[in-house]
């Protein structure tokens, strides 16, 4: 099981990204989405180089961040599936 971490702030885009990713993860048997607030772990935010939220982290690497309309697309999810399956 692979855990993807979604760092969110206090605003709506984080809710939207979380809902969309949770829905998607239900179709992926080996993927789990964990949501964390940036306020709970500011050190991780700095170490990972997160500069805008929501931010998606896979294997300690930020794979997308910022306004989810710009990155949370079907193509992005497909490339994520491919990346994780390898």
């Amino acid at each position, binding site marked *: 099981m692979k855990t993807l971490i979604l760092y969110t702030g206090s605003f709506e885009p984080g809710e939207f990204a979380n809902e969309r990713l949770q829905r998607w993860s239900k179709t992926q048997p080996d993927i789990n989405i964990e949501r964390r607030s940036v306020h709970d772990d500011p050190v991780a935010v*700095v170490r990972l180089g997160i500069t805008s939220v929501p931010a998606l982290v896979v294997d300690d690497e930020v794979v997308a961040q910022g306004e989810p309309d710009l990155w949370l697309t079907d193509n992005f999810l497909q490339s994520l599936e491919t990346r994780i399956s390898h």
Partner: protein
Amino acid sequence: MDELWNMRGINLFNGLTRDEIEEVLRLAPPKSYRKGEYIFYAGDAADALFLLQLGTVKISYVTLNGDEKILNVFRPGDIFGELFLGKYRHRVGEAQALDDVIVCRICEETFLSLTQRFPKIALNFIRHLADSQRETLARTHALMRADAKYRLSGILLSLARRYCCTDPDWFELPASLTQEDIANMAGLNRSTVSSLINDLRRDGVLGGTGRSLSVNRTAIEALLEEAGLEVLE
């Protein structure tokens, strides 16, 4: 993976190795703030500088009439509160989080120790101060214009230069920055700014609808040059 890419993006750390940046971070642990929270207040002792990792911070002060005046707005990668080394040892404005914010605070003692150990930090800091001074002069020049349209354009260009670019020529301003904030920075009232923004949208200088505001850099630079105002590279 390059975990510290953003910290390297802060000019203060240009030329430092990853291990050296790690050391800086150990000495300046990050702290988070929620929208509306204050990082410091006017009158507080100015004993530290701040590195902004996440979010938007505004520095403002309240006039005797109760009006807010915004001195500056900062984005990830920016440094603020850097005048702590001068002879004026108190904050002139207050720093407030406009959204979710994470900053690293470097106190004076730590900063002085770091500059002795890593002279590159001292040099980068001097460069940062010189650039800030130059940008402040350009902004002051625009604010001295009586014409509201050019004052607003000068402020918008100054903001646009620091925000993300979604297109080679378009800069998106964050929704956390309201028209009222922009009006306070330009020393104009909110209704004037609203009306000018509509005009500038019609002229293709600004884009976006409602709260979303984007700036066409080429168009706004042409506007300022036409008014004889300096446009920084």
